[in-house]
């Protein structure tokens, strides 16, 4: 089992969600995150006043899938979230030791 974490641009969330749903992935965790990365925050000057946003708003999607699904999911996210511009985001794949469903105590594949 693997955990896929994708950090993407907020406006791409709906598209990515739909694409994953189509693949049969219904469950995911989504959070609003702040990116402090190579694509630095920006300083804007408007009407003489300086305004600094020191982070970039991003969305994080977390999904757990069976190892066999990883490639397809990663490809789908990459295709969907890509705009070709800086700041499109990153995808991480992590190993997962165990999954347990709180209500029933099921583990492994059944609990995903």
């Amino acid at each position, binding site marked *: 089992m693997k955990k896929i974490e994708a950090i993407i641009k907020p*406006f791409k969330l709906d598209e990515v969600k739909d694409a994953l749903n189509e693949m049969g992935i219904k469950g995911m965790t989504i959070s*609003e*995150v*702040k990116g402090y990365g190579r694509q630095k925050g920006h300083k804007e000057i*408007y*009407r*003489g*006043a300086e305004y600094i946003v020191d982070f970039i708003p991003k969305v994080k999607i977390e999904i757990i899938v069976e190892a066999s699904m990883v490639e397809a999911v990663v490809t789908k996210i990459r295709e969907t979230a890509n705009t070709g511009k800086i700041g499109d985001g990153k995808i991480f794949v992590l190993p997962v030791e165990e999954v347990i469903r709180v209500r029933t105590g099921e583990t492994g594949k059944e609990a995903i």
Partner: protein
Amino acid sequence: MVVDVELRAKRDALEYLWRQGLSGQALLHKHSQLIDDYLVCLFANCPEAAEGMSLVALGGYGRRELFPYSDIDLLLLHTPEAENRLGAVSEALFYPLWDAGLEVGHGVRTPDACLADARQDFFFQVALLDARHLAGSQPLFTSMRQAFHRELIAGHRREFLQNMMQHRNERHHRYGMHSYQLEPHIKESRGGFRDIQAMIWTSRALFGLQELRDIEEAGLISPQEKEAFAQAWDSLIKIRNQLHYLSGRKNDQLFFEYQVEMAKAFKYSDTRGTLGVERFMQDLYRHLQTVATTTDLFFEHVDETLGSPRANPVEQTIEPGITVRQERLHLTDQALIEKRPYLLMRLFSHAGKTGLEIHHRSRKIVTANLHLVDDKIRHSKRMAKAFFDVLENAKDVLAVLSVMLDTGLLTAYLPEFEQIRALAQHDVYHVFTVDRHLLQTVAELKKLSLSKTPFAGVESPHVLALAALLHDIGKGHHEDHAQRGSTLAAEVGKRLGLTEAETACLSFLVKNHLFLTVTALRRDLEDDAFLRQCAEQIQSPERLTMLYLLSIADAKATGPTAWSEWKGALLLEISLKIAHLLERKDTVLPDKRQGAEWMLDQVRALMGKAAPSDYKILPEEYLLSFPPEEVAHHLRLRAGLKNEKQAITEPTDHTLFWSVLVMAHDSTGLLAKICGTLALHGLNVVSAQIFTWEDGTVVDVLNVRPAAEQTYAEQDWQALGEDLNLAIKNRLGLSHRLVEKFRTAFRGTGQKNVQAAPRVVIDNMASEQFTIIEVFANDRPGLLYDITRTLADFELNIHRARISSDGDQVVDVFYTLDGFATKINNPSFQEEISKALLHVAENETGAGARLQW
């Protein structure tokens, strides 16, 4: 035990009767009776209880208001001699109740211990007020009751009231949080059962009044109030009964998951546009509000009757019919209210300005006079002025608007509010009912105006505030709420006397209040073509600023999850990008040129034969700033400008502000002379549009407000025109006259606050065409005159100006070019201008006192 089974069966039967339509009150009484019978039977069968003991019902059970799963509060009163038999009696009485699964609150006390405990514990003291004898020794009970009243109540009325009010306030505070707004606690929340009881207890302890009817007869509440209150109470009883049965336990909080089922149980069904559950919650919120308002008024009234007299009994009349007495505002003249119903709104505008509360009796007077707010009053300019005064200037706008809503005045004045009053939205996102959310938004907007955002300084803050108040007015209907709201808002705007342009802006804001937030989240902010579309839709930086501020205020007023720094960053990004597009001329130029030609056609058609030979003298900027009728009007007026040293002055009344059109031949320092003359006539410039035709004709439109309370009709416009002509002929010494005027008029009234240091910013970046000079200064009489005169001394031409004030600070922005019609690029010249302006801004002048416009 046989009795347990019987008790359980009887309680089940009761639930059955409830489902068959037993009334709420009847259920409470039957339930109490059932438990009474059971306890009396148990008591009678216990030989140890025969002497020196008395079984007493307390609290809600004592009042015979026993909800399906409420605690059964019992007191076993005993003489000291009966001490050794207590164990057996408790066992015989309480164990069967526990076995039957009832929640029992029990105490075992001697009369002396009762009094001692009641002295320590206010809750127990209050519980004893409801004490009712169930079984056992009557004399024992009676003597305890008498001692209780003699020692704890009589002579302690003020203390009792203070305790009661303090507990009430603490409880409101505790249960006023967000989660309780979404999922109201119908016992403890504001307007819940505790508030009802607080009023009944207080009446009983203080005045010996037993029931609601007695309270009404004593004149503590009016018959109308009593009627509404009784109805709300009755409905709340039904709701609480149902909630207990639905939860299957003592639960008084209407959790989200129960709301739909509750609505179904009371036969609320979904209709097009509203959910049954939303209408159910709306009714519930209205009942809670009725109880809250009535009990608020009750406690204020009792507190005043009983409370310590306040220090300052002096009465001060603010205006005919409205006075301040003991730091409360009072309506004093019923006949005058009938003659001038706008006094009702003036009361609130004074409340906003002074920060004083409106006396409870005057709040009742407002409610009793709502029938005076008819269609004519809804169109009244004075009414509108007072209303906008509240929106814009109230110190605590949320408090003032809340009272306006609670008294019913807001809904009477804006009938559009009725539909959304107490309307709930069935989701976890919208914490407040729609009406409260709208009031919150106005308050958040006010807070924003005091904080630093890149978008600030709105030209018509009253339009923005009204948009905040109306942005969700279209909810509760199946149509798109923003679309429907914009139509309703336009009607309101017209009725309240906004100009056509302002009404259009209002309607635009309401229609698009979600635009920025939604696009910021859902669209690619690097898509230039899309951003350009946004810019075209929004049209002007002014509108963008308004939309930006409205979006933030709206989100902040929605609930704790609706606003975050994260969303703020996205919103800021899209707004800045659109702003840069709007300020860049080249992106909109083609459309503009077309617009200007279209305008010229319109003007030509209007002018007919009187058309001047050459339209080229009219600059594009100018053509795009006025409707064709006005351009034609200006052209006609120009014919009347006979000589160089002459000005035409023409005022217009826009209700909330006035505008003055000035036409003259261009000359150095003309704007300074205009500003000086306006100041001399007590007029405060809010914003100005300044145009120079190519033939040297100046067309200036200055929006002004009177510095003192005077009406448009009272203003001497003719004298203003004459003085301006004198000034242009250099026959009027403006400088010394201004000093003179403000020395006499304002001596001693100004108090020195801590002031921000004046600042001058010269910016060549923000505009392609102009050098923008911004002056931040502390306001004083004649300041604008001094600044414009200084600019004239440098032979700078002012092409546009925006004058805004934020409390005592003014921010004056001038779009300027130097004498050669180019930007001011020379750094040393820039510095010279800065220094000269700072000198003027820092100078407190000979007037000696500062003026609070």
